[in-house]
């Protein structure tokens, strides 16, 4: 275990010291600040237009343009960009080193290939967690500091749900946990492709292509697509939104988590299986 933690520490140091790791943090901070600035300027006008359609059904009172709503919007917006930012770092972890030749440096140490892949995968997860932490700080805490706290008006497949401000913090906690699990699937897929491919760009592009294709399949209500939809990880990546429904679809959320977890196990398993047998020829 001592050897494994030494390798993991090495991987974390490399992740921290690589300039590309900071692109993700910069992008998230920028998007959050940009959206917060835009909502601060034009948000009330926009919300008045949206809530106007409910005027004859119920009366909206209080601070609806609050930190919880901004965080909900930011999270929905970033669900497409976050996998790209994760893949940008994790997709390069092994293939980048194979392309540059530094993989030989790693593989001639006493550590086994399994330990090396798992250490890289774990460092990718730590990076993913840090990305989400930055997102959480900017999207939730900074938004609350700017816009204040209030009830969340969440639009979802069931319609409009209002979540009371005193009932929301635990939902955010679980939402970020599910988002982490979803992005872990992306990180694991990137690690797997990174083991298989020998250049740093292809795994990143392949991850994005996979997400785009799966998302398109998920968008259409067609019988042939309906058969495969439940098995696509992208279908379950948005399950964090279910935490803002009332009543809470616990079974659906747990099923999604189980499927996402299964994807992580499969992708990591394939990565280890392939990498253990891989010839390092460059």
């Amino acid at each position, binding site marked *: 275990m001592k050897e494994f933690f*030494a390798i993991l520490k090495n991987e974390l140091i490399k992740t921290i010291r690589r300039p590309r790791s900071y692109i993700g943090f910069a992008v998230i901070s920028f998007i959050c600040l940009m959206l917060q600035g835009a909502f601060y300027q034009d948000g009330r006008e926009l919300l008045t237009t949206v809530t106007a359609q409910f005027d004859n059904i119920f009366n909206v009172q209080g601070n609806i343009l609050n930190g919880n709503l901004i965080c909900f919007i930011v999270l929905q917006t970033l669900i497409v960009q976050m996998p790209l930012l994760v893949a940008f770092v994790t997709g390069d972890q092994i293939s980048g080193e194979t392309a540059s030749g530094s993989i*030989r*440096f790693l593989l001639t140490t006493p550590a086994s290939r399994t330990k090396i892949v798992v250490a890289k995968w774990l460092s990718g997860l730590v990076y993913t967690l840090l990305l989400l932490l930055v997102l959480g700080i900017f999207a939730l805490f900074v938004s609350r500091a700017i816009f204040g706290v209030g009830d969340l008006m969440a639009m979802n497949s069931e319609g409009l749900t209002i979540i009371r401000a005193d009932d929301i913090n635990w939902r955010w906690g679980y939402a970020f946990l599910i988002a982490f699990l979803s992005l872990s699937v992306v990180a694991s897929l990137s690690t797997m492709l990174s083991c298989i491919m020998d250049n740093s760009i292809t795994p990143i592009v392949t991850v994005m292509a996979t997400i785009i294709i799966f998302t398109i399949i998920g968008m259409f209500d067609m019988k042939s697509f309906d058969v495969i939809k439940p098995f696509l990880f992208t279908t379950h990546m948005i399950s964090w939104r279910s935490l803002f429904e009332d009543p809470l679809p616990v079974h659906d959320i747990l099923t999604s988590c189980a499927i996402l977890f299964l994807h992580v196990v499969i992708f990591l398993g394939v990565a280890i299986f392939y990498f253990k047998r891989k010839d390092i020829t460059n």
Partner: protein
Amino acid sequence: MSSAILLENVTKNFNDFTAVNELSFEVKAGDIYGFLGPNGSGKSTTLRMIMALIKPTSGSIRLFGQSLQENRSEIMRKIGCIIEKPDFYGYLSAKENMKLFARAHLLTYTTKQYDDLFSLVGLKGRELDKVKTFSHGMKQRLGLAQALIHDPELIILDEPNTGLDPQGIIDLRNLIMTLNKERGKTILFSSHILSEVQEICSNMVVINKGKVVVQGGVSDLLSHENLTVKLEVVNPLTTAVVLRQSKWAGMIESQEEKLFVFKMGKTEIPEMVDYLSQHQLGIERIDYRNQLEDYFLKITNA
């Protein structure tokens, strides 16, 4: 002497291409062993198999008497290597790169130990510079530091002179000799240049197209007893007559215009030159190689 490396009938196929074909050789502990072959002969593939970077298709590799496949981790603690060009993390300094490697070997180096290591390989004063600013020769020196950091019993050097300046080549040669003589390290030294191997190795194997061409002691293989001597003369007709009446007549392999080719020992050469000058026969050029040098020149030129 015990065996440091033992390869038995090792073959490596990449799809239809056979890179290494039934290769067998043994490196004894304490030896400086030359691994010679032209570019593309299968040297690097073999070294990568010894370092467990590539899995052999068939055959067995044993290091320090243990199977590589079954005892990889234990074996890797005893081996240091430079495989082709050493590649490091360019965004880290030389010292940070070494720290990564030391940590992977569970070593805790002191500042003085790092200083000594960088002095040893001639990188003192550059250890805090980012590796991306290093020249190829400096990376090669850093590669050597990485190969030595865990004080391995066996050091595998794949074309370590590549990119080094003449002084660097001399320094490396001296370092290899010191490591072998004073610290008892076994060294497997790969090169495509015969003279490099000739200067430092005691035994060697020559491979071509993945197969062993010849192996044995360097002094035996590069003996001066059976040289190919090429003699270019001013007056070929008279020289031919004179030589055919001399004791060297039986040693003439061929004659083509002004060029005579002999098979003879090195000591015969000055005697023959004297004999021809006594007969006032001019010599334009004379050079000699042993059979291995001759063969090696052919395959490297090919």
